[in-house]
């Protein structure tokens, strides 16, 4: 009979229902069968049989009652499934009978799965989860390329004119928005102001992103006109923080850096603008969540400059169906054509990077490395468990043989053994997920604050699905080999043989050795990479920085307030007066030795990057060396303890004629090769001034922008130009914690309406600047340690097991006069083979692995003998430690007892 789909569905439902009401159904069936026999007996009696004969005949006609019942039950439920559930229950009972094994296995797995799940939740959020914008895969970050400096800077930010032209001409782009990141000074009801992250963008930004405001409207073209631009759109978080989530927010006025602006729209929750770097290698500045969006009005300068002025960032949307490559090729062609037609002095190109990749570019390498590392730890854990399971399968061999002899099918045997692994995997996996909730919090506290989308990290549904999949995969990984083992058992041999002898077949030993070897290989790779990372990190911290951060406190002051507005004619004098007062008042604080001023927060990357132009030696723009310009006071060198190499320091007497500069050794090398720079002139460097500047001194190179690099620096006195962002550096005998309240009091005593975005010790600033490297080092070191521990446990487990199987053999050897040392050698030699094999394989693997991770490390060599040798030594020492206990046990075998055994 053909059964239709509906029949199948009805049958399936009825089967499921049957499982739930099994007991009642059983009773029903018994009643029905009894009725059958009774009815048959009654009819037979009626035909004239004796009651006994009638019943016997009835039973015979029925056939086997037990068989009928069995096939009835098989028809009723899901026999295979129910059988498997029985297997699981049995496995569970078996595990409870060996709690030490079960606990070890579950704990190992829980830790490993917990670690992998925690790391995965970070990877998932930071690298994999798409942004909440419309078709986020079509969004790209567009930067320009200057062919002449490509080797130094792979791309540069965008020029406004170039953007306008590209947006108009490029067919591959649907739209593109240009923007600048900004900090707005906001003071709520007369409080000290604080800085809120913001964006000044072309009005089409929300169209490019595909975001609809929740309240009010987005920007329109008319907003980007002088005089009309006093409108803002708030992010959801901005609306909550600045307007306390006022439902009538649209139309309200807020004060931004002293200007009154009207709120015209609020973005929905979940929409957050990512942090996008100006260009690779250029600092992003302080990381602040973007809460305020303001329209950008192009300045005359923007509309005029066709070279340089790379002051913007652009986010573009690719047209549907246009690939990244096609768009890049098209824009590149447009840039080249423009270079020629406009007779530009530099050759332009383009760089398009998918938004997700660009935002994660700083951390993705480190995260993938860590994820790979934690996965190999899980792999090593699985190998350990596989070895344990293999041993259990061997000792359960007789049981399996009996089952096979009684007619259990191959699939039944494999499933029965796999059941145990599944139970371990699920309990371990569940415990692992529970651990991961804590693990995620731990990782989030360790992850450097500049990791994008940090606060979004959570154990989400995809993460849970991943953990479940991981549990199943690991159950298969460590349970399948042992389960297959039960297939190879020949019932007869297994039942006759001595179990310890079957366990110690050459094949069994080879499998165990191979498993241990693979573990060792993984561990070696992990150890070598870990030690490279640690060495590179310690080198980063310990190398000479060229400045001394200890006992220095850093305070950054932000002068974006109406009293320092560039609309005021007196702004220069006002800023200068403020800086002077802060410097002299800070000097009055007790125990302060010196107070310095600089224009950039140290260790936040390259900022105020400019060409070094010499009037006496003009060069085409592409050949001019790049320098970082800093505005300092004369005490800067002394406070940071940067040595003066040649010439003289700034002095108070320069105040009247402030157009003097100090340059770093690197700037001297690159800008004045083979010449004495003292007394030479630099032009076009002071904003809004045509005067040239005289070099008066050369100072040592420092790693003041970041510990990984020195930069060519030009230092000028703040008397020539006082920036709106001032960083004060206070050297004091007192610790920063004690000093900080005083510093704050001094600054707000002079002007309560300035913001202090950064106030901490310089040591902390140094430490924060290498947060990613530290995170990578800490996490990898802990995984490397775990891997080593697991490998040691694995070696120990396998050897101990092997020794226990060979007790009789050792007994005989001792009885025949073998010495204890000789016996220990036998065991240690057995241990050596997989260790040597694994180390060899691991070394070969690590050659590849190190090449892959090298770009993540600071000044790491390809082959570091110290790392390799140290890792090998550590592993050998640990392995020998693990082997020595079983070896001693082997030597301590009592021959009489061993021979009498079994």
């Amino acid at each position, binding site marked *: *009979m*053909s*059964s239709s789909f509906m*029949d199948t569905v*009805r*049958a399936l439902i*009825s*089967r499921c229902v049957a499982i739930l009401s099994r007991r009642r159904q059983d009773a*029903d*069936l018994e*009643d*029905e*069968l009894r*009725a*059958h026999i*009774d*009815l*048959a007996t*009654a*009819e037979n009696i009626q035909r004239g049989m004796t009651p006994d004969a009638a019943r016997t005949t009835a039973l015979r*006609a*029925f*056939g*086997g*009652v037990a*068989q*009928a019942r069995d*096939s*009835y039950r*098989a*028809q*009723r439920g899901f026999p295979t499934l129910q059988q498997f559930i029985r297997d699981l229950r049995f496995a569970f009972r078996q595990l409870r009978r060996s709690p030490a094994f079960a606990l070890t296995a579950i704990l190992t797995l829980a830790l490993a799965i917990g670690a992998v799940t925690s790391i995965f939740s970070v990877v998932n959020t930071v690298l994999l989860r798409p942004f909440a914008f419309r078709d986020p895969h079509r969004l790209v970050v567009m930067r320009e390329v200057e062919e002449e400096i490509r080797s130094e800077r792979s791309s540069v930010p965008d020029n406004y004119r170039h953007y306008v032209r590209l947006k108009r001409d490029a067919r591959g782009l649907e739209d593109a928005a240009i923007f600048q990141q900004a900090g707005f000074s906001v003071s709520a009801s007369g409080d000290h102001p604080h800085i809120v992250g913001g964006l000044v963008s072309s009005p089409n930004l929300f169209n490019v992103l595909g975001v609809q405001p929740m309240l009010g409207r987005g920007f329109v073209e008319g907003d980007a006109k002088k005089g009309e631009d006093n409108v803002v759109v708030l992010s959801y978080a901005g609306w909550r923080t600045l307007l306390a989530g006022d439902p009538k927010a649209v139309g309200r006025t807020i004060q931004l850096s002293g200007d009154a602006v009207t709120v015209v729209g609020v973005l929905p929750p979940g929409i957050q603008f990512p942090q996008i770097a100006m260009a690779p290698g250029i600092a992003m500045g302080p990381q602040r969540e973007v809460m305020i969006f303001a329209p950008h009005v192009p300045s005359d300068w923007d509309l005029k400059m066709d070279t340089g002025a790379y002051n913007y960032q652009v986010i573009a949307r690719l047209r549907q169906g246009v690939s990244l490559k096609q768009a890049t090729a098209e824009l590149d062609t447009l840039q080249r054509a423009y270079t020629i037609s406009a007779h530009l002095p530099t050759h332009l190109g383009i760089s398009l990077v998918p938004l997700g990749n660009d935002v994660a570019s700083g951390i993705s390498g480190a995260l993938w490395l860590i994820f790979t590392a934690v996965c190999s730890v899980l792999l090593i854990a699985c190998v350990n468990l596989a070895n344990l399971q293999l041993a259990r399968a061997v000792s359960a061999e007789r049981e399996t043989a009996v089952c096979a002899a009684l007619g259990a099918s191959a699939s039944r045997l494999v499933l029965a053994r796999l059941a145990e692994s599944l139970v371990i995997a699920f309990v371990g996996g569940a415990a692992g997920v529970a651990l991961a909730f804590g693990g995620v919090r731990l990782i989030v506290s360790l992850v450097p604050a500049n990791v994008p989308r940090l606060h979004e990290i959570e154990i989400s549904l995809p993460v849970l699905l991943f953990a479940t999949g991981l549990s199943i995969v690991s159950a298969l990984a460590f349970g399948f080999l042992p389960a297959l083992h039960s297939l190879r058992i020949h019932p007869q041999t297994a039942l006759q043989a001595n179990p310890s002898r079957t366990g110690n077949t050459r094949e069994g030993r080879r499998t165990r050795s191979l498993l241990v070897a693979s573990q060792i290989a993984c561990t070696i790779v992990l150890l070598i990479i870990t030690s490279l990372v640690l060495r590179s990190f310690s080198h980063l911290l310990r190398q000479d920085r060229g400045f001394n951060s200890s006992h220095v406190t850093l305070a950054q002051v932000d002068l974006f307030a109406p009293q320092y507005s560039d609309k005021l004619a007196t702004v220069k004098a006002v800023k200068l007066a403020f800086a002077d007062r802060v410097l002299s008042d800070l000097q009055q604080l007790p125990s302060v030795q010196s107070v310095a001023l600089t224009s950039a927060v140290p260790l936040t990357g390259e900022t105020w990057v400019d060409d070094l132009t010499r009037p006496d030696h003009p060069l085409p723009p592409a050949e001019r060396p790049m320098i970082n310009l800093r505005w300092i006071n004369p005490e800067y060198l002394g406070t940071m303890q940067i040595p003066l190499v040649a010439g003289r320091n700034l002095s108070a007497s320069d105040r009247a004629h402030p157009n003097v500069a100090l340059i770093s050794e690197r700037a001297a090398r690159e800008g004045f090769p083979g010449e004495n720079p003292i007394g030479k002139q630099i032009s076009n460097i002071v904003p809004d001034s045509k005067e040239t500047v005289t070099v008066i001194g050369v100072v040592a190179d420092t790693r003041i922008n970041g510990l990984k690099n020195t930069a060519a620096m030009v230092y000028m006195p703040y008397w020539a130009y006082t920036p709106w962002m001032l960083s004060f550096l206070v050297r004091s005998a007192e610790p920063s914690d004690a000093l900080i309240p005083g510093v704050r009091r001094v600054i707000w005593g002079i002007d309560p309406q300035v913001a202090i975005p950064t106030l901490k010790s310089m040591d902390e600033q140094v430490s924060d600047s290498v947060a990613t490297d530290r995170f990578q080092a800490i996490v990898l070191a802990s995984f490397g340690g775990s891997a080593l521990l697991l490998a040691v446990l694995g070696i120990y487990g396998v050897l101990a097991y092997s020794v226990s199987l060979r007790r009789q053999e050792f007994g005989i050897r001792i009885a025949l006069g073998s010495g204890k040392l000789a016996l220990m050698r036998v065991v240690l030699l057995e241990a050596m083979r997989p260790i040597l094999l694994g180390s060899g394989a691991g070394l070969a693997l690590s050659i590849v692995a190190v090449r892959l991770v090298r770009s993540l490390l600071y000044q790491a060599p390809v082959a570091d003998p110290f790392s390799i040798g140290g890792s090998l030594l550590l592993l050998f020492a640990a392995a020998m430690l693990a082997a020595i206990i079983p070896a001693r046990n082997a030597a301590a075998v009592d021959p009489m007892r061993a021979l009498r055994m079994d």
Partner: protein
Amino acid sequence: MGENKSDVLQGTLDLMVLKTLESMGPLHGYGIARRIEQVSGDALNMNQGTIYPALLRLEQRGWVKSEWGTSGTNRRAKFYSLSRIGRKKIEEETENWERIAATMARFLAQTN
């Protein structure tokens, strides 16, 4: 199972049960088994017990319904009857079976 108690083809038994219920009305398991034995004569010597998995299968598909009732001899027993779907299926299955039987007959005639 005995040698001459040939295993009844699953589909065959199902159709026999349906036909029996169609001609006899509601019937308990023993009654169905007896009726099938009687109709088939000695040609089909099946274990009466095999009727129960078949009945369950038909009930699961929704082709027959069951209900506890009292037999002619006043014994409580489970009575089976055709459902609406079952009635429709009989036609379908009969046609199906006749086609198979005819095909088989043609094959057998050919080999002779």
